[in-house]
C-alpha cells in the first residue's frame, strides 16, 4: 500500500536524509572517524504486513531503540538492527577509548545513546523542515528474537508504519537497520497535511 504521492515521499526522504546527515555528524564526533549513514528510501506498510522477511532482518536477535514522540502528530519512532552487528560497533567505539570495561549494562546504555542520536536527528530534521514542535520520551532499549521484537511492535493497536532502510558504516563496520515510525492513520493524515503545507510553501 502506498497512498503517499511521489512528492510527499520525496519530501519525507529528504527530511530523513537531512536527519541522517546530522546523525552521522554527531556519531563521527564520538567515533572520531568518518561515519556514513544513508536512508535510501521510505516505504509505508500496514503494521500487520510487517515480518522478519519483509524487513530482511534474518539475524536471530534484534535490538530496538524506541522513543515515543508527540506534537501535531504522535508516533513511536524505532530503530531496529541486528544485535550482534550493533554490538561490534559499540565494542569498537568502547575499545577505542582508554580503560573502558566490557560491561553488558553499558552496552545497552550505549545502544540507547546510538539510537537516541539517530532518532533525535530525524525528529529534529522533521521539526525544522515542517516547522512543528515535537516532544519525545527518553529512549528505551529492548532486545529479543526477531519474532518477539516484531510481534511487540505489531501487537500495539493496528496502525501504519513508515519504514526506512538504514545503512550505517562506522570504522569499517557495516550495520543495516530500519527506522520505523509507527503511527495511527489519523496521525499519518496530520503528518501528510504538514508535508503538503511544506511543499505548498516552496
Amino acid at each position, binding site marked *: 500500500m502506498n497512498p503517499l504521492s511521489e512528492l510527499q515521499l520525496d519530501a519525507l526522504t529528504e527530511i530523513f536524509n537531512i536527519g541522517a546527515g546530522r546523525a552521522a555528524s554527531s556519531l563521527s564526533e564520538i567515533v572520531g572517524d568518518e561515519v556514513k549513514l544513508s536512508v535510501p528510501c521510505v516505504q509505508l506498510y500496514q503494521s500487520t504486513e510487517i515480518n522478519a522477511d519483509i524487513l530482511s532482518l534474518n539475524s536471530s536477535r534484534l535490538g530496538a531503540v524506541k522513543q515515543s514522540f508527540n506534537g501535531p502528530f504522535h508516533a513511536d519512532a524505532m530503530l531496529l538492527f541486528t544485535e550482534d552487528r550493533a554490538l561490534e560497533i559499540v565494542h569498537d567505539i568502547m575499545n577505542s577509548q582508554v580503560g573502558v570495561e566490557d560491561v553488558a*549494562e553499558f552496552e545497552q546504555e550505549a545502544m540507547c545513546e546510538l539510537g537516541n542520536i539517530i532518532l533525535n536527528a530525524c525528529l*529534529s530534521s522533521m521539526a525544522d523542515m515542517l516547522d512543528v514542535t515535537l*516532544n519525545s520520551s527518553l529512549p528505551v532499549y529492548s532486545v529479543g528474537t526477531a519474532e518477539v521484537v516484531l510481534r511487540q511492535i505489531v501487537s500495539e493497536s493496528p496502525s501504519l508504519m513508515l519504514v526506512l532502510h538504514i545503512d550505517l558504516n562506522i570504522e569499517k563496520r557495516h550495520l543495516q537497520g530500519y527506522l520505523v515510525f509507527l503511527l495511527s492513520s489519523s496521525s499519518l493524515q496530520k503528518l501528510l497535511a504538514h508535508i503538503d503545507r511544506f511543499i505548498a510553501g516552496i
Partner: protein
Amino acid sequence: MNSITAKNGFIPERIADRIWDSIKSGLILVDGEGKIMLWNDWIAQHSGIPAEFALNHFLGSLFPEGLTASFKVALKNVLQYKLPIVLSNALHRSPLPLYPLPVTQHMQERLQQSIVITPIVTGEEKHLCLIQITDATLSINRERVLKSHSERLSQEAITDALTGAYNRRFFGERFTAEFGRAQRQNIPLSLIMLDVDYFKYYNDSYGHPAGDKVLISVARALKSQLNRPTDVVVRYGGEEFAVILPDSGSEGSQIVAERLRAAVSNLNIPHRESKIADRVTASVGIATCQPDTDCNMACFLETADTALYSAKHGGRNCVRHLLTSDCGRPCPPGTP
C-alpha cells in the same frame, strides 16, 4: 495547615527541595541560557560546590576545567530541539568533574557517570533543561559480581563435583579440540586412561564415603604430577580418569604415565581387598597418535581403552602403551 500534604495538588517548595536533596543521583536544572536553577545535595557533595555558589551561575563557569565538547553539544541540542538526550557511560565516561566521596583536594579520578538530559516544557518560550547524573560505578560493580558469578557457573558446568577434576563433558570438548590441533599442526597427542584397581571391592569393604575420599585423593595426586597447563585431568567415569597430553609422544607420555601410577601408589591408602597389593593402586593405559599417521578420534579412544585393558590383564598397577596404528582393526577412514 499540614505542611506535608500537597496544596491544590502542588508540593510546597521547601518540601520539594527536601525531596531533591534526598534523591541519590545528581539533579541540575538550567534555564534557556544555561543558568543553574536547581543544584541538589548529591551534586553539591560530588562536585564539592555548594548550592549557594552554584545557583544563578552558568554551568560552564562553575567548572574551571570546562565542560566536555559532547556535553556542551548535548545541552545545546536539548535546548534547541527539545528532545531528550542520553550520554552513556560507555561512550562518554565522566563528562562532568564529579568525584567519589569524600571529595578531596588532591588528584582524584572522576566519578563514572551516566547522564540523561531532558527538556522541561514550561509553557513559555524558553524551555528548561534537567540534567540527571547517576553514578555508574554501582553498575560496574554489580556487573562484576554477575560476571564472576557466571564464570563460576560455567566453571561448575565443566567440573566433576566430587573430585574437582574436569568432567566428561569437558573431556569431549577438549579432546576434540586437541585432536584437531594435533592433526592440523602435525604434532603427537597422547591420551592416558587410568583406572583404580579393585575399587569396587574397596567400596564394598570400606564404604562409599571412604571410596569417595580415595577418588578425591587420586585426582589430587594426578593433578600434582602434571606441570603444563595444557595437560588436563578428567574424571572419565566411576573410578576411571583420563589425562590429555597435547604435544606428547610415546616416550614423554610413558614417563608421565609412570609418574601418575607411582603417585597413586605413593598415596599409601590401605586396601585390604586388593589382590595385588596392600594399598590402593591404579592401572594405566596410554595411546599415542604420532604425526602423519592415519587416525581418527574413535580409534584413538579405543586404543587407549585397549591399552588400559592390557594393563589390567598384565597384572594391574602397571603401565601399557599403544600407538594408534596398533589399533586392533583398521580404522574406517573418515569416521569421526
